[in-house]
């Protein structure tokens, strides 16, 4: 009897081992297949992603709230420190800003008058959704965040995500109640921009660092550190004029310092400018009865 179980074990052991190895290799091939699939067919992968992030959105939302409270407490503690100094600088800044306000009012009136003379067609007004950031990308290779608003709130692919005063990124995946925003610092982010003072066009290229690179400038472009950079509107995804940051000189070229504290991205404004750029044209390319 003992011998028999021994011989059965001798027989089944290699079989089980073989089955295990086979499963392992099959799954490894499956994972490699997923990588190719992710490269070749982004639609399926995107749908899977969106389903997963939609399902997890309530959990992440709940988890991000107590940490938000904790973060606020950390900030409050930090702020008491140096309050007097801050007060003084703020007062000075306020005085300066009041002067600017007067200038801006005058320019606004002048602009309106000139536009009236020219018969200028104004851009469509933007509608916007403000969404809480509920997920960071968590890794060294992607710069994207998950926002707690989706198709049911009117979020659509290609919308601009603005944090505070600057462009933070572009909506690139939309679920029902969550949306993924590809930040302008991501490796795959390319934004057509223009240097505000010299009107030199360039492409803002992310490389996973905090300051995206300014590429494809004309060789004799008159760009200097400190110049403001705004979206150019080329490509039809973003409207022109969204502030992106200021030029800084770095490693032989130019980079852009966004006015955004990437570590404190709490809320994003997802703005709909009613533009039908290449992103949406590409989306509707599948159905023949779509947009002309």
């Amino acid at each position, binding site marked *: 009897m003992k011998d028999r179980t021994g011989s059965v074990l001798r027989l089944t052991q290699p079989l089980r081992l073989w089955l*295990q190895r086979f499963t392992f290799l099959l799954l490894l091939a499956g994972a490699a297949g997923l990588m190719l699939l992710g*490269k070749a067919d982004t639609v399926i992968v995107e749908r899977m*992603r969106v389903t*997963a992030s939609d399902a997890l959105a309530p959990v992440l939302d709940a988890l991000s709230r107590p*940490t938000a409270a904790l973060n606020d407490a950390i*900030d409050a503690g930090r702020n008491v420190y140096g309050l007097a100094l801050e007060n003084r600088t703020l007062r000075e800044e306020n005085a300066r800003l009041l002067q600017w306000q007067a200038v801006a009012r005058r320019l606004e009136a002048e602009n309106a008058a000139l536009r009236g003379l020219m018969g200028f067609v104004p851009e469509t007004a933007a509608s916007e959704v403000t969404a809480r950031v509920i997920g960071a*990308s968590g*890794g060294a290779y*992607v710069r994207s965040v998950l926002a707690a608003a989706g198709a049911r709130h009117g979020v659509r692919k290609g919308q601009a995500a603005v944090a505070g005063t600057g462009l933070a990124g572009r909506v690139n995946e939309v679920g029902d109640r969550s949306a993924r925003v590809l930040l302008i610092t991501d490796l795959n982010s390319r934004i057509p921009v223009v240097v505000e003072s010299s009107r030199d066009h360039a492409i803002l290229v992310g490389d996973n660092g905090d300051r995206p690179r300014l590429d494809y400038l004309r060789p004799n472009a008159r760009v200097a550190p400190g110049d403001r950079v705004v979206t150019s509107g080329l490509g039809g995804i973003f409207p022109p004029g969204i502030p992106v940051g200021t030029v800084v000189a770095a490693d032989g070229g130019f980079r852009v310092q966004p006015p955004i504290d990437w570590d404190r991205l709490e809320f994003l404004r997802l703005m709909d400018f009613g533009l039908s750029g290449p992103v949406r044209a590409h989306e509707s390319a599948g159905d023949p009865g779509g947009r002309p």
Partner: protein
Amino acid sequence: MNPADSGLLHRLDAAARAAVPTLTALALIVAGVVPLRLPEFAAVVPWFALMAVYYWTMYRAELMPAPAVFAIGVFQDLLSGGPFGVNAFVLLLTHGAVMTQRRVLMRRPFSLGWLGFVAIALMGFALTWLAMALLNLTLIDPRAAMVQYVLTVLLYPPIAWVFAAAHRAWVH
């Protein structure tokens, strides 16, 4: 209580216990994407899934089979928003590497298990970097990944301690 009931309960209990290793991995992955205001943390958040796969493959290989590793990897791929399939692939390879060495690693004191993790995590991070560079067709600045590696290695002992506690409390 009739014997059939207790049999069902017993099986449910056993299934729940068997799911603990996978659940610890999934919970840590979710925790890893919660936004914190620590400077630069999102970019260098430790690779918790790798720790979970290493620990459980080493000590309870039957509860961390290849399909579970695959599922953990896909889950992380879905949640991270990066190129698809990379985590699943690298975690599976890590699992395979640990499977061949676990008899050696398990018998040693914890510090040697940690050294094993240092070596295997290095392979895992290098492979991930390579895969990301290939899939993005560009050389990626490896500094963030290096910091992530160091953090992952340094945080392995405390996280392994948590795994060990879960191991004692629920799996045995």
